[in-house]
């Protein structure tokens, strides 16, 4: 358009440009947002590990801590009665597991530290491999993570009993899990379970996330407030 065309068409042109710009902005932002959200969804689905904020994962169905009688690393018998009215932080391990278990247990060690003056919080590790993980083996393993004998139980026992407890109270069994082959076919053994003082499984946190310890402690605080 030339200057000779006068002011009217110029205004129209300006209006057209403005509308185009707004449309472009709206679509552009929308598009960017779409890309961003797809991206973050991919990340969320793709991996457990990392620094993203860990969230509480609900149990697959309502789960409760059942009665049990197992053996602590000290050789002492531990039953459910001993844990009544306690908030439990539970993980699952086999001591010859070299990749995920040490990460999850370092997280439990962190939680132990963060809850030093909270006697209502009890840490519990359940072995899925009781044939290897005798009380002596667990004692050595506990030392490696600075597990306080008063605050952190490492339990083993009869395979049927310990697998029964894990299957009923904690972990789903997936026969088709392509990543895990073990007696009991447990899935998600790298999760940390949180049990409220009434014995209900509140949910799970990803034991491989480096922010899980803080998230567990925050969730414990919410539990105490009855939230």
């Amino acid at each position, binding site marked *: 358009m030339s200057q000779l065309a006068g002011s009217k068409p110029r205004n129209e042109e300006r209006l057209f440009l403005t509308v185009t710009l707004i449309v472009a902005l709206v679509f552009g932002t929308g598009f960017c947002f779409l890309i961003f959200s797809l991206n973050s969804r991919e990340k969320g689905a793709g991996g457990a590990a990392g620094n993203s904020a860990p969230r509480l994962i609900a149990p697959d169905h309502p789960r409760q801590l059942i009665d049990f009688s197992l053996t602590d690393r000290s050789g002492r018998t531990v039953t459910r009665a001993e844990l009544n009215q306690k908030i439990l932080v539970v993980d699952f391990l086999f001591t*010859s597991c*070299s990749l*995920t278990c040490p990460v999850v247990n370092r997280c439990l060690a962190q939680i132990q530290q963060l809850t030093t003056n909270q006697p209502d919080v009890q840490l519990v590790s359940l072995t899925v491999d009781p044939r290897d993980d005798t009380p002596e083996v667990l004692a050595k393993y506990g030392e490696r993570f600075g597990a306080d004998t008063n605050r952190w139980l490492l339990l083993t026992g009869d*395979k049927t009993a310990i697998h029964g407890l894990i*299957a*009923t109270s904690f972990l789903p069994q997936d*026969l088709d899990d392509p990543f*895990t*082959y073990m*007696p009991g076919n447990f899935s998600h053994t790298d999760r940390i379970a949180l049990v409220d003082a009434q014995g209900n499984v509140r949910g799970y946190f990803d034991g491989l996330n480096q922010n899980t310890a803080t998230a567990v402690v925050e969730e414990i605080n919410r539990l105490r407030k009855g939230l």
Partner: protein
Amino acid sequence: MKHLNYFIVVLLLAIAGCKPKPAAPDAGSAGIKFYDAHGVIRQIASDRHSATIQHDAIAGYMPAMTMEFPIKDTNELNGLAPSDEITFRLTVGEKEDWIEGIRFISHRIENVTNGMVMVHETMPELKTGDLLPDCELADENGDRIQFSDFRGRALAFTFFFTRCPLPDYCPRMSKNFSETRQLLLNTPDAPTNWQFLSISFDPDFDQPEMLASYAKFFRNNNPDRWRFAAASTNAIAQLAPQLDLMVVRDRTGISHNLRTVVLDPQGRIAHQFDGNEWTPQQLATALTVAAGKK
């Protein structure tokens, strides 16, 4: 190319009027509907024309319950028994319904305490004296082999993977096998009907060439009575519960425990070594004892 294939598949499915993963029900011809279901057999009728199945919720049809279903083809029940976990297809016509396409998943060992405990495993853990069910493996020459190929010999087998980085784990097992074999070869009055077999649980990576070069190193160029093989994921899934073996993969590698088993010449479990604290001398003794079993 992959995308193009996918596109064609989607297009074909769209033309055929169904989705890639059809949500139940699947409409068939003449008003017949199909529902995929999953459950545990509780009872099989004596005429085998019906079975009582405790099934999960059948999406779009009924909630989880235990009920009797008619079966048209009694061959569908071959080899099945109560407590078997199955998948099946419920077929609902205008006037009748029946189940078909029954597929065995596992035999459930149910252990009820407190009214709610249920642990199910594909196979029970084997004890000394039990026959190890056969299982196919791919060996270093690319041949399919199975445990029964070694009948007549005492067989020592253990699990490993070539990428295993921890000296206390797989390399220790291979070193122990090497020393045990040497002990037997050096003992003048030792039996000669023995065999070693190292089984990898990393079949994708441990292809025959990889196994062969790993074997070369530990066998010191002498392949006498020591074979290397890889187990498929199906084989591992089958062996893990029977031998109390644990294999957990993640993005960075494989976590596992150690199980070393000695079979007698009939394929029965003669001895099991857990962990890594057994010695070549102990294994040589166990093999010698097993080799003499009738």
